[in-house]
Each structure stands twice: as C-alpha cells, then as structure tokens.
C-alpha cells in the first residue's frame, strides 16, 4: 500500500490503513519528539497526540501530497503547543540509551564518546535551533518542508540551520559552546 492509497482509505474511515501509516512513521516521529524534548515518556505522549490529530484531520489532507512532512508538522505543533502550555521545560540532555549497557569493543567505545559529545552539543542549542537540526538531519525534511512545518520562511530556516551548524561545530571543536558562540574563528 502506498502512502497515498493508505490516506485515501483512511479518508473512507479504514483504521487498518491508518495503522499502516502509523507503523511506517512512528519511528521518525518518536525520534524527532525525543530529540526535541529529550524525554522518552513525553515524546511518546506527543507522538500519540500527533497521530490522533492526524486521524482527525485526514479528511482535509490531499492524498497526493507527501505524508511525512505533514505528520512531522503536526508533531512539531503538538510539541510546541505543549511547551507553551507547560512553560519551557528543561530538556534533559541524557535521554537514556537502551543499548548502553552492552559490552563494546574499544572503537565502539570511542564512537560512543563521540555520540555523547554530539548529544551534548545538540542539547546546548536553543530549542529553535535544535528543532531545525533534528527535522533536517534526523527527520529528513527538505528546507521548504521544514519552513512549512515550523511556520517560518525558508530564508529563516536556512539562517537558523547555518547558525546551528556553526555553533555545533564550535562546540565540538572547543568543547565550550558559550565561549565559542559569538567569539568564533
């Protein structure tokens, strides 16, 4: 079943077709939510809310359009509106990794270190910057899709991305974002 067929069937009220869409996109939504919030439990709640909203709104969705950016946009809205409602929650930097305790060879341990460093650098970004980075490189949205999902102009997306990438780079090389940011070179 293609996405489009699935959407058409959902519009006729078929739950099985929706299950199909859920299973196809739950990982990308969940991952995005975790990366945005840093909290697995919250992320799951957001993803559920987003899918419920998608089901409610699917009648108005044009089946020929790509599904993923649409779902991601709904998710972003869910997360952002939650954030507004609850106030800016502190994002926990260390979302627990389920594979953490497995025994690893040395090169993997190094890789693990790098991953932790990048996580830390990501956590150092402000929410908007983190959001564009996650949507672009984790969820795989294009810049125009990202602009639509976040409700800002493409130019703004590009400049946010550029600054976010610069800050990440600085932080990863100097290990101190606060120092690097604004004093870079």
């Amino acid at each position, binding site marked *: 079943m293609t996405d489009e067929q699935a959407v*058409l069937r959902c*519009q006729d009220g078929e739950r099985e077709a929706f299950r199909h869409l859920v299973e196809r996109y*739950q*990982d990308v939504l969940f991952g995005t939510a975790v990366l945005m919030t840093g909290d697995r439990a919250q992320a*799951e709640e957001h993803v559920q809310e987003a899918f*419920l909203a998608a089901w409610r709104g699917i009648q108005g969705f044009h089946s*020929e359009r790509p599904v993923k950016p649409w779902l991601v946009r709904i998710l972003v809205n869910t997360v952002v509106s939650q954030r507004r409602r609850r106030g800016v929650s502190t994002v926990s930097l260390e979302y627990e990794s389920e594979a953490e305790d497995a025994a690893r060879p040395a090169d993997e341990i190094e890789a693990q270190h790098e991953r932790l460093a990048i996580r830390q650098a990501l956590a150092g970004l402000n929410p908007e910057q983190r959001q564009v980075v996650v949507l672009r490189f984790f969820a795989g949205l294009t810049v125009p899709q990202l602009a639509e999902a976040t409700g800002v102009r493409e130019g703004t997306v590009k400049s946010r991305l550029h600054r976010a990438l610069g800050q*990440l780079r600085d932080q*990863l090389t100097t290990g101190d974002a606060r120092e690097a940011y604004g004093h870079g070179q």
Partner: protein
Amino acid sequence: MASNFSPDQDMEGTLRRHFAAEADDLRAPTNLWESLEDRLEPHPAPNPVTRIRRKILAAAKQNWLPVMVTGGAVAVAASAVLVAGNLGQETSVAEKTVVVTEIQEVIKEVPVETVVTKEVIKEVPVETVVTREVIKEVPVEAVVEKVVTQEVIKEVVKEVEVLKEVPVERVVTQEVVVEKVVEKVVEVEKVVTKEVIVVKEAYSEAPAPAATVAPPPAASELYPAPTAQPADTTFQDYGRQPYVDTAEDAVSTFSLDTDRTSYQLALTWAQQGYDIEPDSVRAEEWINAFDYGYALPADDWGFAITSDLVAHPLDERKHLVRIGFQAAEVPDDRPLNVTLVLDASGSMGDGNRVDIARAAAEAIRQSLRPQDRVAVVHFTTDVIHHLTVDHRVPDDYSVESSIAQLAPHGSTNVQAGLNLGVQLANRARLDRPEAYNYVILMSDGVANVDATNPFAILESAYDRDAGNPLRLITVGVGITNYNDVLLEQLAQHGNGWYRYLDDPGQAQATFSRANWLALSTPFADQTRAQVTWDPDVVKSWRIIGYENRVTSDASFAEDRKEFAELPSGAATTVFYEVELHEGVLRGDDLTLGKVELRWVVPDTGQSRSQQVEVTGRDLGFGSAGVDPLLRLGGIVALAADRYSSLPRGADDGAAGVSSDLAILQEELEALAGPLGGLDAYQDFRFLLERMAERAYTEAPPEPRSGYSR
C-alpha cells in the same frame, strides 16, 4: 582545509551519521499502535463531493482513469453523471448541481494527457476501464466493436501482436472533458435546463429532506461558511428589456400579469434581515403589488384602460408612461371544482411552511360554497394515498381532517402530486362540466424527485381541454430553500396565477371568502396587450419589467395558454420609459399611440379585443397635479428595474443604480404627505432603504467632481 566541502557540509555529514547511529535508540515503543487504536474516534462519513473527488483522483493516479478507449471525455462524463445520479433521490437538485460542478472542477485536476484514436471515439460503450499501458499496446481497431472491459483487453493483449504505434488522431484535452461533462450532465440529469432554474450557491441552511432510507449529509457538513442569505433559493435573471427606436419597431406586445409574488418575497426577505436578491425582482410584480385605485369599467363587458404621461424622475430627457388595465367585477355563481395539492415533503418542515400551507388550504375550504367540491392530495416522494380525498363537499369531515393532517416527511415529487391532482380534477371536470376547475399547488417548489423543471412537470400534467381548462394556482411558502422559478412558471403556463405567503395570517386573509370569490372567478383568459407607439411623437421606448412576459408581436393574434388569466376585478399596470421627439410637448393632451387588449372570455371561449389611445399630458414628476399613486408606481417601477440589474448595474453600472435609488428615495419621501398613512407606502419605504443600502455596498454613487470630462 582538508575537505572540499564547506564547514556546514562537513557538519551536516557528521550529524547524518550521528543520527543514523542513534536511530536504534530512537525507535518508537512497539506497542504504540495498540495504545493508539483505542483512542481513535470514528470518522464522520465523508461528504459525497470529497468522495467523488477522491475516487476520480485515485483512479487517475492508479493509471486507470475511467477514460481512454471511450474517448476519455465521454467516459469521465458518464461516470460523473453516474456518481451524481447515485447521490440518490434524497439529494436535492441544488445539491446535485453542486456535486456536478465539483466534478467538473475535479476533472480539471485529472491529468488527461490521453491519446485516443478517431475510431475509438466514435462508438464505444461506456462502462470501460482500461489502463494506460494497455492502450498504448493494443491495436485499437481490434477492440472497438466489443464491450471493452479490463478482462477483454487482457485477452486481446495476449492474442494480438503488440502494435508499435497507435495512430493518433486526436488528443483529448481537459477542456474537451469538461465540456463533455457539462453536456452530458445537462442531458442526462436534466438538472439544469437552458431556460430555467438557476441555482444559487448558498447552501448553509438547506434542510436535509427527511429521507426514508439514508439521510444525506446535512448541508452544513457539505458546504462551507454559512452565508447571510437564505440558502438554496432558485431565481432566474430574465435580463432587461432594451430601449427600442420607434422608427425601427413601434410595437410592444406582452402578456398581462397579476402576480405580485416577487414583491412579497422581497418584503419578507428584507423584514427578516436578508438582502434582496436582484434576480428575484420582477418589476411588473412589484408594480402590480400596489393598488392604484383605477375606476371600474362602465359595464361587465371588458376593461377600463387608462394611460398617463409624467416626467421621468431620473432622466430629464425621458418620460414615464403608465397604462392601467382594470377588469370588471362580475358576479359568477358557477360552481367550482377545487383540487388542493399539498407538499408534505421534508423541506416543508422548515419554519412555519406547513402551518402556512395548512392555513391557506383550510381558508380556501371555508371559503367554498355548498355547490363547490374539493379534493385533497398530499405528496412527498410519492402521493400519500391514505390522505387523498376525492372531490367532496367542502364541509365533509374527511376533507377537513386531511388538511389538518398535513405534515412534513420525505422528499419532493411535485410531478407525482400534480399528476394525481390533475387526474382527480379531470374526473371532476367530466362529472360537472358546468364548474370552473382549479388545481391549487402549495409548495416551497423544491422538487427533487423526477422532473424538477417546470416544463417537464407541466407536460405530465398537461391539460388539453382549452374550452374549460384546469387552472393551476401556485402558492409558495418558505424563504430558504425556495424555488421561485418553478412556481412562477408552473402558474404562468398552467392557466393560473402565483401567490407567495409568509405567515398563516396572510394565508387566511388572501383566501378569505370575499377575496377567494373574486380570485376564483375568472374574468379574462389568455390576456395580452399590444402597444403601438406613434413614431412621430415617441422617439424610443422601453418596457419596465415584464421580461418573461414580453412576446412576439405576431403572437398577439393567437390565443395562447401562457398569456395571463385575470380574475374578476383584477388590475394590471405597465410602465414604459419613453423618449419623445423634441417639440411635441405643448402642455396639451398628447396622443402617444394606441393600446389594444385581447383576451378569451372564460365562460364562452369567445375572443375579445378592446382598443384605446395612449394619451397623457406632460407634467413634472413632482408637480401637484400628478396623482401621488402614479408617482409611487413610477418610483416602484424604476427602483425594481434598476435594482434587478445589480450587481452589474444598468447603463451606468452599479454606481448608477446606487445614485438612482438615492434619488428615488427622495422622491418617495416627498410622497409622505399624501401616502404616509398607507401600510403599502411604509413597507415600500423600508424596502427601498434596504435596496439603496445594498446598492451602495455594491458601488457608492460616483461623486460629482465639478470638472468637465
């Protein structure tokens, strides 16, 4: 720098790798669907338009456009019609029309880059489904003669060698498809006829007819934003009569009209806070809504015909001519056969429609005399047989009880109701040849089953006895979801007249015994007038209103059903705008031409004619010698005429209408002294105010700059 990439690109690569490595840790819990499923609410059924849109788009996407072999266009058209047809009987005409329009829109979205050969287009059954791939490969000549189904094609593909090239004779463009759909839809559904039925777009309040099977989705689900206007009303813009140069054509022929429904509708709408639909304005019915106090003729033989000339309040180069026709009042004690055909469809449940219809029917019953007979028919999807009462004396309990049981359910089949009504009336006519025969239809006109066009309905109820015709009176009720065209045309072509009622009290008054006796005594049938202007006096002329009553000069000699039936004591008025030749005005009585009236005497079937000169003395519109009622009539005529040209406007566009109405308002104020005490004056004053407001929002009058152009 080691890399050929920008620093950003390096970082992007790092991030992509990072996220790929993290992906395993970021998987959603496996039971997400299970916990989600329980929380999904059931979907409301999608509306038919959305459903059709989806189906066609899906078909297009899946490469089996229901197109191709049939010449694409026709097949799409046919499927569109099929879908529209399948919407079922409970869907109203208006809704179907919307659906069809939607389909046309949808089809514009469908990629129809199909290539079709000439042979194919010629003649192929419609229920064809062929894939694009197949068509490219199949020698089309081989399959045209058969009913082409997917299976057949597959068979053919197996058997026949693949052709390299299909001869390309014609490319079916989207325009062709859309055009075909329109043709097909009109032809098959008979939803939209050329002459009648223009369905307006507002569907906000269209009540869902109480369907017997599955109710259609409520209109509010179907269509967006409720508008501030009554929904789903049908009016027709009959255009405007032009100025005619007398040197080229000095003769004006028209059927008389005693209807005043257009005015009553407008007043009701305005009183309920709605904008008056310009298309609903028929100036002649506005003019005829007022009593000009014409004197009765000296004898019973014919009419008192009067004429007046007065300066034009809006244009100093022009004049207004009023011609009034006052029928004699004749006592007539011939008995009546009355057949009440009552609309019991779901739409009648809206507001107090049923109450009005019941009150009107009951008032008529009480106004009937012992020598009269009355029958009752209720109709919805079909006739309600257990409530049908054949002709009986008016105070028979079964008649009273049947009327009292009028209640809304089902959809509307005016044709079925009229058919039975006509059958009963015909039988009564044969039983009692000495009686006049009335079939009285009470409805909101929202026919949605079988024929929905007045001519088709009339055809089935066609009455061939010219000597003692059935007279079809239509009584309209309701504001939203109201079909003015159907009821007006039914009466015009059914030897009758048309009234609109907006409350039970008005129903009782209209059909009070005194009114009913006059209304039910026919005085003149097939009444038409012909004005011949003197080309030496009148340079050009224009009739106000009567757009759908104007007829060819040649037809004046013929007795025709569609000409007007006038009851005893009826008055009809016509206004002309005329331009006089310079120098003809000398303050004396002026002869402008002549007017001839022809009609058929109902009793005897004898044709009669009466002719007088059209005369008048030129007086300023506001001058003291002018009858205030003539001035009022002139204002009503011009206001209705100008307003009905909105939103385009007449000669000077909408801004011209706006300034004309403002001037007419001032002229009307000047009549407050002599006429202010009349209800009719106050009602019209209010109406004109609303009209002026509406015209102003359309386009305010252009301010005078004071500079030359």
